């Protein structure tokens, strides 16, 4: 039986759903109301595989639901590596354009999201490498709250909360000082809690290489922290 929300709002929730229908995309509205012109399959009702197949055959519009669905993840990933919103958008845009161009190489063995995230991580790594020369020596410009946080940590480590904005700013500065490979590894391993095998799949590096780079990255981070504290306390 097809339920038409616009005709029969039986309770408040249904009425709200009916009100929101005009705000939804045409395809979603078809899905809710169940009225659909014959012969037209709205993009939202098609499976991911069907949308991908249509996009590969040149139907660009079929790519839109995929962009809508996975863009939040792409943006969250890009924001881990780029500071400026303009740079984040550039990365996300590049990821999607690459994804569209290479969609033919997607075999469907793994979920589309994994394939896309591999592309996103590699694009972010390329971004870090291309912006390597622009990295500033950030420790000379430590703000007062960051300075206070470090001071607090030096006197009583437990009193310095990791939820403080100053701590967030400090770790951002430390990560910006790191090499592209080091930053990528620390982000994936420590911040996203990914396994070495997962990182290997995402980056295309071998498992031993990931382990070596992780070891080096931790050392690099400790050196940067040593410099930060030496500049401040010696």
């Amino acid at each position, binding site marked *: 039986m097809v339920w038409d929300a616009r005709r029969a709002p039986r309770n408040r929730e249904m009425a709200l759903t009916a009100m929101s229908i005009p705000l939804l995309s045409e395809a979603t509205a078809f899905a809710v109301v169940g009225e659909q012109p014959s012969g037209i399959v709205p993009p939202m009702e098609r499976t991911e595989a069907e949308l991908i197949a249509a996009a590969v055959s040149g139907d660009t519009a079929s790519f839109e639901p995929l962009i809508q669905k996975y863009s*939040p993840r792409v943006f969250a990933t890009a924001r881990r590596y780029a500071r400026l919103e303009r740079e984040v958008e550039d990365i996300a845009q590049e990821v999607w354009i690459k994804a569209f161009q290479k969609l033919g190489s997607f075999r469907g063995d793994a979920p589309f999201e994994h394939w896309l995230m591999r592309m996103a991580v590699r694009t972010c790594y390329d971004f870090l490498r291309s912006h390597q020369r622009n990295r500033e020596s950030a420790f000379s410009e430590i703000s007062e709250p960051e300075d206070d946080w470090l001071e607090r940590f030096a006197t009583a480590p437990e009193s310095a909360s990791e939820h403080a904005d100053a701590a967030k700013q400090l770790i951002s500065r430390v990560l910006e000082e790191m090499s592209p490979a080091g930053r990528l590894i620390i982000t994936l391993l420590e911040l996203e809690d990914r396994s070495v095998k997962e990182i290997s799949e995402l980056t295309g590096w071998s498992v031993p290489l990931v382990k070596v780079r992780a070891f080096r990255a931790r050392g690099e981070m400790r050196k940067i922290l040593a410099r930060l504290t030496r500049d401040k306390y010696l």
Partner: protein
Amino acid sequence: MNLEDLQKKLLAAARAHPPEDRVPYAFEKRILARLTAQPVDGSALWARALWRAAIPCVAVTLLMATLSLTMVSTETATVTDDDVSQQFELALLAPANQLEELQ
């Protein structure tokens, strides 16, 4: 200051502040507009066409080489008037021969 603890604390701070997953308004429309408005890369089309043509070209070359080698071997055995290579050479040099005759 204990660097190990500081490192742990800062990494915990980064984990406590995950990045936003906000997407700019009409981002997907912008991407679609970019995809549909992408200019046709002429050089890429040429490169693709040439790569595709490479295999038949190599095949034809190999075939012709094999044919000419077999023909040379038969030529050494019997040279006849209606030899293809002789006729081809005559046809090719015909204009030059005519010029010579006129002079």
